[in-house]
């Protein structure tokens, strides 16, 4: 069917930040939906958020309560949320108690009362909470057909009256197979609470949504004083990859390093700085941000191991003024350490900061701190989450610098303990080496996906002016093992061996 002849389905905003994006634009108008999940997972709050966002006096929301939590208690708790609008109560949002109808007249009584109320109020939204209670009263042997008929009639009634409907129930997943209501429903939203060690993570899944493409998978959500906030797995960024006509190089703020990198880091790249503790990874990241500020490119620092004030204070010790751009809104320092964070929330924080500042550069300091801040349930998927995050952010033109602490080993040179080198476009490795009985520092550009780079292993020092890169170590071999050998010694040994031969 072409665009002109097919029916246009209006989409209603859910009032839940992030959820419209997950649903594919909003909730289809006049749809017949189920919100399912265990007690305490946010079903009622989700429904309330929707009705307060959409109900009007002309087209009100009818909220039918049955047996479970009475409206009196709902109002007591729901008014604590900022979305609750007392002015809408009893005009745009109306509660109806069906408990007595169910007890005295069964399903037929419930259907009659809902019909009566719907015809009188002409609602745009109808909620039945808890619908499972309604059906459970009749779900026993020999009553299957009656239940099925009831669900069918209710769906027909509410759709005919142009109402968008939510049936709320404490269903368990095995019920999806047998319960007729799941067949009739246009939309099925399942809310979960996952407990992993001591942390709880809330997730939702759009298991079914007729008429439009929703984002598949489990999406994290939080319940705060503002109600639910959902975090789409993609945050709407897939398919938006920014293309660059020519590769612009961004300065690292260290001229010799820019030279080693063939002119700087390519815009939109993901750069990994790997090294052991004290090698200057965070300083390099700070210099990268400061260089961006100087070049008129706002930046964001996502830090997990120090507070924003400590971060800017440390930068000032190296002559880098981050306090001024921070005050002027050209820099944001995001400090997150809640220990039950999801990558999606982190991404949302960063995206919000990008919108506020117009940031071009992002520093994640460090990946280990980031991983620790995540709820245990998310740590298992850290690599996959990191991939999604890096892909999504670089797609909108953000250049990302991540730091990664590596255990120092003097026998090999691993690039990362996460095996995440494939996620990054460019890698710089920093490490300690023993030279002439002293601990020195070396760095090398290991990988530059989009261009040639220096193969030199350069020594560097951390000074009050930041990182100062010195010359290439020319007279040593095995530098990357951390215990190099002077070339002169090797040559002397070779000479000795040749003589013996």
């Amino acid at each position, binding site marked *: 069917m072409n665009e002109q002849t097919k029916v246009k389905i209006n989409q209603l905003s859910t009032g839940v930040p992030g959820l419209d994006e997950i649903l594919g634009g909003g909730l289809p108008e006049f749809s017949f939906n189920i919100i399912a999940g265990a007690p305490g997972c946010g079903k009622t709050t989700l429904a309330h958020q929707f009705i307060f966002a959409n109900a009007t006096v002309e087209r009100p929301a009818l909220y039918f*309560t049955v047996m479970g939590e*009475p*409206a*009196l*208690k709902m*109002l*007591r708790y729901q*008014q604590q949320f900022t979305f609750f609008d*007392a002015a809408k*109560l*009893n005009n745009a949002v109306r*509660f*109806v*108690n069906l*408990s*007595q109808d169910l007890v005295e007249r069964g399903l037929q009584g419930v259907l009659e009362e809902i019909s009566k109320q719907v015809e009188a109020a002409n609602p745009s939204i109808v909620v039945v909470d808890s619908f499972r209670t309604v059906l459970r009263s009749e779900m026993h042997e020999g009553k299957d057909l009656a239940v099925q008929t009831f669900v069918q009639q209710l769906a027909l009634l509410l759709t005919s009256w142009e109402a968008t409907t939510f049936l709320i129930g404490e269903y368990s997943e095995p019920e999806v197979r047998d319960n007729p209501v799941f067949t009739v429903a246009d939309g099925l939203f399942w809310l979960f609470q996952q407990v992993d060690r001591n942390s709880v993570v809330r997730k939702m899944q759009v298991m079914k949504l007729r008429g439009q493409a929703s984002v598949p998978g489990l999406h994290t959500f939080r319940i705060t004083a503002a109600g639910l906030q959902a975090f789409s797995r993609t945050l709407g960024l897939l398919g938006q990859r920014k293309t660059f006509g020519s590769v612009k190089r961004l300065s690292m703020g260290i001229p010799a390093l820019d030279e080693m990198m063939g002119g700087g880091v390519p815009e939109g790249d993901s750069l990994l700085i790997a090294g052991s503790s004290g090698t200057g990874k965070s300083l390099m990241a700070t210099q990268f941000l400061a260089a961006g500020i100087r070049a008129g490119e706002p930046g964001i620092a996502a830090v997990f191991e120090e507070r924003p004030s400590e971060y800017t204070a440390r930068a000032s010790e190296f002559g880098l003024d981050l306090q001024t751009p921070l005050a002027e809104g050209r820099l944001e320092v995001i400090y997150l350490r809640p220990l039950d964070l999801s990558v999606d929330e982190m991404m949302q924080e960063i995206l919000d900061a990008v919108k506020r500042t117009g940031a071009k550069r992002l520093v994640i300091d460090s990946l280990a701190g980031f991983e620790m801040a995540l709820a245990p349930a998310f740590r298992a998927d850290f690599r996959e989450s990191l991939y999604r995050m890096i892909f999504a952010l670089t797609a909108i033109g953000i250049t990302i610098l991540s730091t990664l602490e590596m255990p120092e080993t003097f026998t090999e040179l691993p690039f990362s303990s996460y095996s995440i080198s494939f996620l990054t476009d460019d890698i710089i490795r920093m490490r300690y080496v023993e030279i002439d009985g002293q601990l020195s520092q070396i760095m090398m550009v290991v990988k530059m996906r989009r261009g040639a780079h220096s193969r030199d292993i350069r020594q560097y020092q951390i000074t009050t002016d930041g990182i100062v890169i010195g010359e290439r170590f020319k007279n040593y071999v095995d530098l990357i093992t951390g215990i190099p050998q002077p070339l002169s010694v090797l040559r002397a040994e070779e000479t000795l061996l040749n003589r013996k031969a």
Partner: protein
Amino acid sequence: MTRSADTPTTRALARRLLAYEAAEAGTAKADTQAVCRVCDKLRRPLTTLAGAAGFRSLLARALSLAKQESPLLGAWEVKPDGSLQGLNGEAAQPGAVLIAQLIGLMITFIGESLTLRLLHDVWLDLPDSEVKFERNESK
């Protein structure tokens, strides 16, 4: 016993509602009828919010609290259908105590703002100034 939500302001509001209903009733037993009329008018919104059994429970709880203060309520009872019985003799003073306790319970559960909104919806023809808490009343 005075509960946190049972204040001079709820007492004053209860008296205003009873006075209004007594004037509307205009019979010999106007005070008694006023108590019944106020309870009946509160029945609808409270049944909507808490169910019929919920309304009865709230009224019974309010009566229990009110009895601790007013011996005149001794014979008053809440019937299974949620109506009052045993209202003999003086009703104005004990009635005000009962209604104040009921309003106090509503405030405890859903707060002052929503309670006043519900009362406004019930007593639409009562001037706004009558259905409010007098903040400047002495406590």
